[in-house]
């Protein structure tokens, strides 16, 4: 015990050295794709309008603008109202799906997740068709009052519903039947049981869902752009400053403001995840869903009403895309799909979107899986692995609008050697991979964490290189998760508009951007048609992935079914 030697390290074998380099490479890519663009926003926010350094002065000036305060107030009101509307609706829906023996449960679940297939512009278009100046039901909202607060809240409710639902479903799916039995034997009625068992057990899920809805609403600009009218919100303000007035520093300051709720919700979510750890003990008894006819009937009615409303909002735009002139001539036509008559990019935009979604799914899945594998399974991952994992969490906290702004400032800078990427499809792919990295990374990590941690040591003792184990064991056992990640990337890249809105050129215009531009130009029917194409291709992709997954599992994964 006289001398403490310097910490020793095992020598790395060749495959471990290679994997180590790969990890550093992935880390460098994430730094370029996420960290540097964000740093560029910070830098830009400190520039005066003539480009000279001005410290915090532009920030102060922008914040002092009355327009900005109005926009911030508007965003806040809209976000709070949407959260208050969506949370109880989604909670009831999730409870009906998980706690009641609901007939057609799978169908209702699918129905509620449909909004994920559409860009956030679509509910806006549907609302215009339903309640707008030429709307079918315009008397419901007198004097065009749908354009503004009411329209934004309804549209955002549609857009955020599946996000809230997914969190609450997970939260409500677990529960301990023993607690309910104990409460019943002690004479607690249904209300008391709900207030003392169900609600406390799902409070983390509720907070988490509320944060997600709030953040999505504040950072989304699709709905407000289409149906918001003159109602001021921050996201549209940022868009106007950058695209309309070319005022980049002010756009950057608003971008920083948008980052705040996202960062806050990110921090709260991390904190919750740490607290939530031991909610349900290993000895918990699974819940038996309610079977009473009355409960089932009520659940059926409720889910039909909510799901029906979602379906109407989705279906109106789709239906209108196939009608001659909503709402006067309801005859069938395909003329709105002849995009040559309108501006916006037309079929080129759709083809670009398909390409973007495909490349994002391919590149994203490979990068994410390698990164998650390296950072969690590699003995020599060390610092690179930790940094990669930390950086992979960051995109979740960065709204697409902010990321897109960062890409302008970073890649469009004349001194950047990567300047050549600007205006290409490649930068759109990079941006989309970065934008949706966190969820994909978490999915991959979860799947990898379920594998026995001793696979790699066993393989090493048998002198089998890491790569072979990755290919023969790790990848095949994680295949369902890998397909899930690819599908997620594809659909997200297909529907996103926020990040890419700043990065497209006439050659790389995208379908979701085309929807925005056509709607802007007053070609609502063409916009609805393009939105329909997006929904159709996302839906087709989901179906395709489901079939592929089913086929692969049936073919190569016999081992998953004992005997």
């Amino acid at each position, binding site marked *: *015990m006289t001398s*403490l*030697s310097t*910490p*020793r*390290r*095992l*020598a*790395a*074998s060749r*495959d*471990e050295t290679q994997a180590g380099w790969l990890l550093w490479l992935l880390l460098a890519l994430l730094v370029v794709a996420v960290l540097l663009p964000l740093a560029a926003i910070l830098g830009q926010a400190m520039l005066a309008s003539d480009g000279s350094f001005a410290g915090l002065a532009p920030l102060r000036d922008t914040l002092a603008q009355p327009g900005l305060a109005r926009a911030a107030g508007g965003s806040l009101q809209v976000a709070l109202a949407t959260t208050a509307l969506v949370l109880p609706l989604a909670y009831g829906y999730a409870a009906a799906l998980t706690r009641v023996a609901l007939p057609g449960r799978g169908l209702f679940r699918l129905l509620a997740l449909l909004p994920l297939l559409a860009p956030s512009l679509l509910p806006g278009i549907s609302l215009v068709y339903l309640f707008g100046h030429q709307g079918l039901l315009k008397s419901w909202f007198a004097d065009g009052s749908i354009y503004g607060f009411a329209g934004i809240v309804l549209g955002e409710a549609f857009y955020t519903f599946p996000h809230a639902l997914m969190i609450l479903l997970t939260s409500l799916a677990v529960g301990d039947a023993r607690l309910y039995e104990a409460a019943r034997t002690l004479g607690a009625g249904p209300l008391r049981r709900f207030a003392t068992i169900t609600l406390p057990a799902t409070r983390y899920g509720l907070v988490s869902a509320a944060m997600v809805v709030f953040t999505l609403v504040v950072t989304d600009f699709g709905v407000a752009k289409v149906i918001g009218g003159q109602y001021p919100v921050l996201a549209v303000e940022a868009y106007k400053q950058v695209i309309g007035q070319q005022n980049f520093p002010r756009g950057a300051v608003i971008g920083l403001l948008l980052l705040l709720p996202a960062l806050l919700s990110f921090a709260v979510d991390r904190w919750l995840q740490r607290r939530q750890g031991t909610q349900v003990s290993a000895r918990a008894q699974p819940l038996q869903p309610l079977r009473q006819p009355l409960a089932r009937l009520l659940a059926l009615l409720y889910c039909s009403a909510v799901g029906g409303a979602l379906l109407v909002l989705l279906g109106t735009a789709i239906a209108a895309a196939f009608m001659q002139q909503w709402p006067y001539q309801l005859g069938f036509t395909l003329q709105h799909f002849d995009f040559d008559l309108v501006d916006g990019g037309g079929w080129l935009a759709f083809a670009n979107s398909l390409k973007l979604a495909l490349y994002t799914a391919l590149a994203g899945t490979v990068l994410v899986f390698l990164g998650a594998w390296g950072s969690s399974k590699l*003995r020599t991952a060390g610092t690179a692995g930790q940094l990669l994992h930390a950086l992979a969490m960051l995109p979740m906290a960065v709204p697409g609008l902010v990321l897109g702004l960062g890409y302008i400032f970073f890649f469009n800078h004349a001194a950047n050697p990567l300047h050549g990427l600007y205006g290409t499809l490649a930068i759109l792919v990079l941006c989309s991979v970065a934008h949706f990295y966190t969820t994909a990374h978490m999915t991959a990590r979860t799947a990898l964490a379920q594998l*026995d941690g*001793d*696979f790699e*040591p*066993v*393989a*090493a*003792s*048998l*002198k*089998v290189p890491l790569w072979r184990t990755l290919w*023969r*064991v790790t990848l*095949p*056992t994680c295949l369902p998760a890998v397909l899930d990640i690819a599908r997620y990337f594809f659909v997200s890249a297909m529907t996103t508009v926020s990040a890419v809105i700043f990065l497209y050129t006439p050659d790389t215009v995208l379908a979701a951007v085309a929807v925005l531009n056509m709607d802007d130009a007053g070609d609502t029917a063409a916009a609805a048609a393009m939105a329909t194409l997006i929904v159709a291709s996302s839906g087709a992709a989901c179906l395709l992935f489901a079939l592929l997954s089913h086929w692969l599992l049936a073919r*190569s*994964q*016999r*081992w*998953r*079914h*004992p*005997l």
Partner: protein
Amino acid sequence: MKLDPTTLLHKAPPADGAATRPYLTLAGISKRFGQQQVLSQLDLTIGKGEFVCLLGPSGCGKTTLLRQIAGLDVPDSGQIVMDGRDITLLPPAQRDYGIVFQSYALFPNLTVADNIAYGLGGARRDKQRRVAELLALIGLDEIAGKYPAQLSGGQQQRVALARALATSPSLLLLDEPLSALDARVREHLRREIRSLQQKLGITTIMVTHDQEEALTMADRVVVMNGGRIEQCATPFTLYREPATRFVASFVGQGNWLAARSRSTLHATLGDVSLLLPAPHGTPSGSALTLFIRPEDLVLHPRWPATPDAVLADITKLELLGPIYRVSLHVPAWGAANVVADITHAQLAQLDISPQQRVPVSLNAARLRVFAGEEKQHD
């Protein structure tokens, strides 16, 4: 006079493995995790072909020690030499061992045959032949095409063993290989693993917290506690001559008696004078603690001729299956409470029941003597 315990056994235990050619040498191994010293200055030599068990309570460092040998971790200081080669800093792939983990870590998407062939190179036909050999060796020829999830726990365990042995490594590491199995399968596999090991003559290190497993399987048992080796000996020596209080109380059952030394070979236990089996180093008049196994206490049907018999009160009689355990209160041994193990035949002969008195003596040749008053190690 010291009785050589080996003379009491009609089948002598095998000689100390360390006496054969050393195959694996650990010298001064230390490892600390943060504030906690997990291994401290540990030395161990393992002979070629020897089966060594690392035994100890959880947290004693036995698994950590195995991980240093496997190259899954690196010791802060010390050296590991295997077959004359310093492997302290080599990655696992450059060492030469097969390993079976507690979870078995069988690849779920590969068949039994593919799992066993995983580390094999060369032509396909050679691989197939080797897999067939190994399946025959573990007696599971008929399951080659099955997946791990379709096997019983015992079958999975044997497949993991076959996979570890496939590349003919010179060292086999077993990390609690039987702890996930139920008692009956475990007992069967103990014998199977041991006979396989002897057939192949492969040097083997097994980590276990189950003393019965260690005593029945190993050539030598290394008892660890708090990151140190308490004793390293054959199962027989370990049981009969525990070197420390910890080993005495960790392995098997025993009675602790407070005594006082009278000379280097004599001690006083209550009112009784005892001849100790070996000289001890403590000065006359100092406190001693005597340790004796329950089977080395003798209950007498009649008052015996031996001078050191005393009367004991029977407080409890417990049936433990093959034997009875008798709880006694012995006033003449300083009011000690002890337990004695007797057979059914002995019980019939004694014809005793609780609340009765019975003459008792102890087999002084089997006493272990520790200095000081402290009884058990905690």
